[in-house]
């Protein structure tokens, strides 16, 4: 089916797009309100959406040509809710809604240090409402493996990420979506789930099979239930934190075996579209690599009366300038990914590349080729950025060589980077293997605004925290948090959970310190390489940071994907999540050869001691005559023969 669709779609798409473009170019575009941040992009996008619906209509009609629409049996079908009761047909509604939708985009942002940041986002929308339809058996673009996971475990929201490397906020700015090093999984369950912990453990096991990761190590010793952080990112009116679970595995590595199943979730796979660029040899040869899957229910349209499922797959990677072995500063798609693009994914409704040219308005910093006339503006991370857009669904983007290789050549490297407003660090202080201190530093770089910050700390049980030593200081003075939630750990059962709402004063550093003591583990609980150390997961800092430009609070479809991840409720601040470094602490490690040594020594001592005592007590002594000489023996024989007593 997919192949059949692939064959038809590209020429039909172009035909429709071109015809509608010529017809409606002179017409007035439908006023879509003031929330349109994209200025020059409105016209092509608008016609594209019209073309898209007509295209979808054509697709729908072609799809249903094989099965006949029967009004008579539809009433009978309404009674029986079974899937395979009888050969059933679909009722064609008067307004054909697209069943599934897939969008892909790539954002390339040159960083001030010479590195380059590429962020892929793939979004699959599935127009089903799980809360009403319990058994779903028809999967289109949405991957079946994840659909079955959501329905079986009654998941409302699922966020899982795998990261290698640490995001350097001070050098690179803020990422679109941040993630902690290692693996992170947080899930909101539906309120129909009775045993949340059991379901959580099973879900972690199933995900470990899907993503080839050792997520089965997620159990009660590293799972926490935050009470204020990690509010649901999708729609929903109930936020009872009993149904939320959060766990992180800082030791988890990411490699090709995690990327491969992630790529298989995409509708086009790695055959067409932006996913052809995802080659593991280049992606893992980078300073930072992160892949994530986010599933949540979203509004189907602006009225928001029905929900649909959204699957977002994101991949963020930062390529190092010096690592790739080049002298001058020049980046291109081929240099980054060793591939160029030849076509968009035929199943995608939009497929775009955005290059951030905000620092390069007149082209004085770098030169971008091939040149593109499409320019787009978007408000992302509280700042209005300008992007050059390459639309892959248009054939002219690929030019005469039928391949697109975006090239950026730098001429000068002046200008400073805008300092990120929120930044955090964490480290362990102290000496020895008994005690220590965890210091978390939060920087507020805004000159005059203060903003609230929610700090979530989950520390494993083997670092016994002394909460009475918790201090929060800003600018040398005590800063009392307005909300503290602390759940103490239980040995081998659950970790510490500390959540605090702190108001960061403007232009300051806030320091949170807490002392801890290291526990001695049982000798079977050590990992095979205990001298490496034990990891403590990153702290999560969620905050509403004041933005430089006014944000748009209406949810809309036409914004690029990277700006619509976090729902924004107010105009003056945007939500951001920052992760600190994970900590690596050494626990007092025993010498594992000691049991062997002890057994040998004890056995030797017992053998020597007991053996000697036993011999002394039970040995008897007998006097033994020395054997006589040869002459005497002969004389004794003769005397015996004579019957005379021997000598």
């Amino acid at each position, binding site marked *: 089916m997919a192949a059949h669709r692939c064959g038809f779609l590209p020429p039909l798409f172009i035909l429709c797009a071109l015809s509608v473009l010529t017809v409606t170019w002179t017409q007035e575009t439908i006023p879509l309100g003031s929330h349109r941040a994209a200025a020059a992009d409105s016209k092509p996008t608008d016609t594209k959406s019209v073309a898209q619906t007509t295209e979808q209509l054509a697709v729908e009609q072609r799809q249903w040509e*094989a*099965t006949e629409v029967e009004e008579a049996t539809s009433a009978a*079908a*309404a009674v029986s*809710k079974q*899937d*395979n009761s009888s*050969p*059933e047909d*679909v*009722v064609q509604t008067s307004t054909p809604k697209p069943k599934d939708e897939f969008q892909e985009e790539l954002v390339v942002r040159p960083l001030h240090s010479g590195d380059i940041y590429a962020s892929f986002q793939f979004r699959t929308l599935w127009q089903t409402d799980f809360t009403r339809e319990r058994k779903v058996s*028809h999967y289109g673009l949405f991957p079946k493996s994840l659909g079955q996971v959501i329905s079986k475990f009654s998941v409302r929201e699922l966020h899982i990420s795998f990261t*290698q490397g640490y995001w350097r906020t001070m050098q690179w700015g803020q990422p679109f979506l941040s993630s902690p090093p290692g693996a992170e999984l947080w899930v909101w369950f539906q309120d129909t789930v009775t045993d949340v912990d059991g379901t959580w453990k099973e879900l972690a*096991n199933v995900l*470990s*099979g*899907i993503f*080839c*990761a*050792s997520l*089965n*190590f997620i159990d009660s010793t590293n799972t926490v239930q935050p*009470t*204020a952080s990690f*509010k*649901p*990112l999708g*729609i*929903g*009116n109930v*936020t009872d*934190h009993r149904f939320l679970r959060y766990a992180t595995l800082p*030791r988890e*590595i990411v490699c*090709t*075996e995690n990327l*491969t199943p992630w790529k298989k979730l995409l509708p086009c796979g790695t055959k067409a579209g932006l996913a052809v660029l995802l*080659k593991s*040899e280049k*992606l*893992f*040869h980078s300073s930072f690599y992160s892949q994530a899957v986010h599933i949540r*229910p979203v509004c189907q349209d602006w009225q*928001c*009366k*029905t*929900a649909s499922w959204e699957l977002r797959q994101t991949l963020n990677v930062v390529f190092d300038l010096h690592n790739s072995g080049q002298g001058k500063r020049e980046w291109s798609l081929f240099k980054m990914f060793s591939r160029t693009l030849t076509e968009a994914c035929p199943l995608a409704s939009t497929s775009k590349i955005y290059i951030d040219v905000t620092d390069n308005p007149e082209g004085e910093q770098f030169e971008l080729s091939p040149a593109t006339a499409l320019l787009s503006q978007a408000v992302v991370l509280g700042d209005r950025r300008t992007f050059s857009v390459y639309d892959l669904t248009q054939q002219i983007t690929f030019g005469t060589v039928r391949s697109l290789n975006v090239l950026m050549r730098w001429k000068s490297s002046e200008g400073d980077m805008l300092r990120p407003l929120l930044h955090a660090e964490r480290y362990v202080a102290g000496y020895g293997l008994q005690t220590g201190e965890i210091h978390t530093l939060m920087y507020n770089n805004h000159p005059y605004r203060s903003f*609230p910050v*929610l700090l979530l700390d989950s520390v494993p049980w083997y670092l016994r925290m002394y909460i009475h030593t918790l201090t929060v200081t800003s600018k040398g003075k005590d800063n009392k948090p*307005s*909300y503290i939630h602390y759940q103490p750990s239980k040995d081998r059962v659950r970790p510490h959970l500390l959540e605090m*709402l702190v108001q960061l004063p403007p232009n300051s550093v806030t320091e949170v310190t807490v002392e801890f003591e290291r526990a001695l583990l049982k000798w079977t609980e050590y990992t*095979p*390489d205990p001298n490496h150390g034990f990891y403590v997961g990153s702290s999560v800092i*969620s*905050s*509403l940071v004041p933005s430089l430009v006014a944000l748009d609070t209406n949810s809309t479809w036409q914004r690029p994907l990277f700006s619509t991840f976090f*729902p924004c*409720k107010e105009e003056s601040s945007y939500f951001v999540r920052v992760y600190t470094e994970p900590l690596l602490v050494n626990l007092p490690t025993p010498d*594992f050869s000691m049991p062997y040594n002890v057994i040998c020594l004890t056995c030797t001592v017992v053998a020597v001691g007991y053996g000697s005592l036993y011999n002394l007590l039970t040995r008897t002594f007998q006097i033994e005559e020395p054997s006589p000489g040869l002459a005497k023996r002969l004389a004794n024989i003769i005397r015996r023969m004579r019957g005379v007593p021997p000598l």
Partner: protein
Amino acid sequence: HTAGCFITDNVGQFFSSGHTNNWAVLVCTSRFWFNYRHVANTLSVYRSVKRLGIPDSHIVLMLADDMACNHRNPKPATVFSHKNMELNVYGDDVEVDYRGYEVTVENFLRVLTGRLPPSTPRSKRLLSDDRSNILIYLTGHGGNGFLKFQDSEEISNVELADAFEQMWQKRRYNELLFIIDTCQGASMYERFYSPNLMALASSQVGEDSLSHQPDVGIGVHLMDRYTFYLLEFLEDIHPASKTCMNDLFKVCPKSQCVSTPGHRTDLFLRDPGSVLVTDFFGSVRKVEITMDSINLTSVVSHRKEEPAANGELQKEVYSYSDQLPVSEIIHQKPKQRDWHPPDGFILGLWTLILLVFFQTYGIKHLKHIF
């Protein structure tokens, strides 16, 4: 090559081995960067087995450490088996089922015997039946009668033999080929006693298996000798080849391997000369030819869609949650903790208090309670 094999060339022998599916369990038991060669060994066998037809769903791959994305690897996401980086055995489509700390003796034995927790995903299970031919490949550091797992525990030859006997009793294999590439590897198959087992080892008791060649770019030895020549041998095998096990026994003679590879076939019921290499390394695709015609029913069956928004007027409007509702958080009520029955300590304390009370004031006060 085929001189020592007695293969009759007809269709009947296609099913002469009696197996209908193939499985492979490939285990690398060593951790740390200098044991790169063990991971390369396992991955090259994985690659050959995949090439010859066994799908990922029938392969359980256990790698105790990650070499490809190790920070010491000068070429990330690659594992090479030949020097000068000729052959990348890691590839682009690899599925590692057990990795890192999951590779333990317990998990290995559980995979073999099938006694896994109920929530284990399918890709981590060995779902073999009594018509399965299983290939088991182990590599790492070993000694006389044991194999070391991750530098912290060992599996002994007795345990392994018992595990195979369990598999036989539970009818989990038809025939099993066991290959081990460690020092003194022959000691691991000395204790086998279950039928239909064939074993190959890279060295005899008292001998060390040696590594093949280092690569100056990567800085460690890339492969072990036995597996290197085994890989070369397998590169000549294709899914339809008729090479038999006698040729596999001849892989890596003492002149190339320095150690003496050994094999054991006394428990195997068939003659090794009639056993194809692809019986274990490849995959059988059972094809049934039928002349009947089957009517296909329409598969596209949709449930009737409920009348859309036009039918229901009172639909609640959804909205996104506030990500950081400051006032709500500050005025949050403390979480209702579930009531637990009193703990043992509290119970004991109260019993003590009551006992002391009734001791002092006499038993007559009890009537006030009952």
